[in-house]
C-alpha cells in the first residue's frame, strides 16, 4: 500500500501538470483565437462588402454575407481608374525604395558598427535624432526641393527622399555589432578591404535583418499616402493608395463603397503576400528594434 501510495503521488502530479498545461494552452488558444477574429474582422468585412451591391452595403441592420453576389465589382473597380498604371507605379516605387534602403542602411550600419573614425558615435546619434523630426515638418521644404529639381509629379519625388533611413540604419547597426569580429579579422588577413569584407562577409550574415528591413520598407512604401498625395498630381503617376482614395466623394452617400472595397481587396494582396512570406522577419524586426515600422 505504501509503495502504491508513493508511486501514485508523482503520477498524479504528472497528470495534474499535464491537465494544467492543457488547460492553460486551451485558454491561450481561445484568447488568441478571439483576438485573431477581432483583428481579422475588418479585413473579412472588406472582402464581404466587395461582393455586395451598393444597397447591400447600406442595408440596416447590416449583413455579413451578401444577398446578391456581385463579382463584377472587381472588373468595374479595375476599369474605373488607372489601376494598371497604379500597380506599376507602386511596384517601381516600392522596389526602388526597398533596394535603396537596403543598400544605404546596410552600408551606414556597417560604418557605424565596425569602422573606427573620429566622431562616429556622435554622427550616429545625430543621424538617429532625425527619427524625432515629424515628417509633417518636412513637407513644405521637401516640396520646394522637389520643385527645384523639376521632380513634381514624377516617381523620383517619392523614391529619392526615401532612399535613406535612420531607423533602418539603426536596425542594421544593432544587428551588425552582434557579428563576431573574428570573422572580419580573418577576412582582413585574407586580404579583404573594408568594402569586400562588407560585401562578402558582413552582408551575407545580415540576411535576416535585411529581410526584416525589406518587409517593413515594402509595406510602408506600398501604403504611403500623404507625401505621394502632395507631390504626385498627374493621374498616370499616381500610386495605388491615391487611386483608391480618389474613389471617395465629399458626400459619403455618393461614394461607391462596394467598388472601393473591391479595389482595396486587390490593392492589399501584394502587402498580404509580403507579410505572409516574411512574417517571421516582421516579428523579429519588432523584437530587434523595439519599433513597429520605420520611415
Amino acid at each position, binding site marked *: 500500500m505504501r509503495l502504491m501510495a508513493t508511486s501514485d503521488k508523482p503520477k498524479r502530479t504528472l497528470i495534474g501538470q499535464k491537465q494544467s498545461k492543457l488547460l492553460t494552452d486551451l485558454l491561450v488558444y481561445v484568447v488568441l483565437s478571439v483576438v485573431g477574429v477581432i483583428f481579422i474582422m475588418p479585413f473579412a468585412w472588406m472582402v464581404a462588402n466587395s461582393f455586395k451591391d451598393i444597397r447591400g452595403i447600406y442595408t*440596416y441592420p447590416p449583413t455579413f454575407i451578401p444577398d446578391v453576389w456581385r463579382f463584377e465589382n472587381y472588373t468595374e473597380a479595375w476599369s474605373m481608374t488607372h489601376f494598371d498604371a497604379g500597380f506599376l507605379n507602386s511596384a517601381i516605387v516600392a522596389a526602388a525604395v526597398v533596394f535603396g534602403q537596403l543598400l544605404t542602411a546596410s552600408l551606414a550600419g556597417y560604418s557605424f558598427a565596425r569602422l573606427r573614425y573620429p566622431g562616429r558615435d556622435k554622427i550616429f546619434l545625430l543621424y538617429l535624432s532625425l527619427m524625432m523630426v515629424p515628417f509633417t515638418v518636412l513637407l513644405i521644404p521637401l516640396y*520646394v526641393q522637389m520643385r527645384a529639381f523639376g521632380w513634381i509629379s514624377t516617381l523620383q519625388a517619392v523614391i529619392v527622399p526615401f532612399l535613406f533611413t535612420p531607423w533602418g540604419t539603426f536596425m542594421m547597426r544593432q544587428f551588425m555589432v552582434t557579428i563576431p569580429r573574428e570573422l572580419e579579422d580573418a577576412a582582413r588577413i585574407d586580404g579583404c578591404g573594408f568594402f569586400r569584407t562588407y560585401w562578402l562577409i558582413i552582408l551575407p550574415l545580415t540576411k535576416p535583418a535585411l529581410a526584416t528591413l525589406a518587409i517593413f520598407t515594402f509595406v510602408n512604401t506600398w501604403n504611403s499616402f*500623404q507625401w505621394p498625395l502632395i507631390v504626385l498630381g498627374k493621374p498616370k503617376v499616381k500610386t495605388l493608395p491615391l487611386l483608391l*482614395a*480618389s474613389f471617395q*466623394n*465629399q458626400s*459619403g452617400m455618393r461614394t461607391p463603397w462596394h467598388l472601393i472595397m473591391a479595389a482595396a481587396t486587390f490593392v492589399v494582396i501584394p502587402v498580404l503576400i509580403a507579410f505572409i512570406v516574411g512574417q517571421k522577419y516582421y516579428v523579429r524586426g519588432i523584437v530587434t528594434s523595439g519599433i513597429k515600422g520605420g520611415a
Partner: protein
Amino acid sequence: MIRKFALLITVLALLSFGFLASAQDMMDWTCGMVDGDTAGAITITGWEGPGEVDKFLLAFDEFFGEYYPNVEQILNTGVAWGDYWTTLPAQLAGGAEIDMAWMHDTRNDTFAANGWALNLDSYLEACPIPGWPEMFVASQVDAFNFEGSQYAIPYDLAPGGLYINLDLFEAAGLEPPGEHTTFEEFTELAIALTEDTDGDGSNDIWGISNLASVGRGAGGAYWIIKSFGGELFNETNTASEMNSPETIAALQWLADLLWDSGAHPTADSVAATGFTTEFLFANGNVAMHYALNDAASRMWELVGDSFNWTVVPTPTGPAGRYNFIGGSAFSIPTSAAHPDLSYELIRFTLANPDHLCRTAAMGAALVSQSEFHDCAAPDDAPYADAYHEVFSVIGARDGVHPAYHPKYLEWETSVWISNMDLLWTGEERDAAVVVQRAHDQTNELLGG
C-alpha cells in the same frame, strides 16, 4: 436655275450666320489674353470625385476643345475633403504651379490672407463674367470676398432644409412643419414623432436628426443662434459675442433635444447603428432630417419608393427666420502658371448658359446663377416643387453663415468644436458653462 440660285444664297447665308455666331461665341468666351495656339498643360485640383466632378469636366472639355485644343488638362480631382485641405496649403506654400483650385467659403479668407489665392478684381474688370454679380446669389459672392476683393467665383450654393418622412407624419396624425413653424412647435413635433417601437428602452425612431453632431463646425448651429437672436463675433471679428443669453438659449435648445427629450439621436446611438443619420433617415428611422440641398438627389436614389418624403424649410425663431447657406467656388492660386487661361476657363464654366442647366442637373446643387436654380431638381422628381421653394427661394433668401475671417478655421477647431463637443457628447449639459469657456477662449484667440 432660280431654285439653285436661291439654294446657294440660303447656304451662303447660313454659313455667314454660322461664322458670325461662332465669332460672337469666340468673343464671349475668350478674353483675348491667351493665344489660341497656346500649348502646354493646365493643372486643376479639387475634392470632387467620380460622379460629382463630371458636371464640370464636360464644360472643361468643351472649353479646351473649342478654344485651346493644344492645352492638356492635368486633373487632380477626387482628393478626399480632409486631405485636400492639408495638401493644398502645403503645395501652395511650396510654390506649386496649380492653375485652378476648388475653394470653399470656410477657407476663402484664410487662403486670401495668406497670399495663396489670386485677387480676381482686375480680371473681373478687364473681362467681366456675364451676369456678374447681379445674377449670382449675393451671399455667395460675398462669401468669397475678402477685404473688398473677390478671390474666387462661386459655383454653387448649399442652403439647409428639413427632409421629411411623410409616412411617419401621417401615421402619427401630424402635419409637417412649414416656414412659419416656431421652434417650440417644432420641438413638440420632434418629441411626438420619437418612438421606441420595440419597447427595449431605447428609441429607434427619432423626431429630428443631424442638427448636432460631434466634430460639427459652427455653421451647423449658426442659423439657430441667429434665429434666437444671438451672435458669435462682433462686427469686426475681433471679439466674442457668444455669451449672450440668446446664443446660450439656442445651444441649450439643441442640447435638450439630445439629452432632455431624446428626440435627436446622440452620437453613441448613431454609432451603435453603424450608419450616419442620413442613412437612418433613408431607412425610415428618422422623421425629420436636417441636410443641405445636395442631399436631395441622394435621398431620391436611396429611399426609392420605400416611403413618401419631401423637403420643408427650417423653423422660425424669436428673432426671425434664418437657414444655413454655404458654397464652393473656383479660385486661382497665386503660384498658377496660367492664371489668364484659368480665369477664362472659370468664366466659361460658370457663366455659359449653354451648359449651366446641365451642370446644375448633374450636380443636383445650384449653380450660382438664379435663372438655372430649377435645373437642380429634375422635373420628374417628386420633390421638385418643394425643392425649388425650400432651397432656391426661401433658402437663398434667408441664408446666413458665420463670418469666415482669417482666424476662423483655427477658432472652429480649437475653440468651437473642442467646447461644443462636450455638449454633443453629454459630458456637459449646461450650455452656459460651455459657452462661457468658449467665449473666453475666443477672446484670447482674437485678441479681444
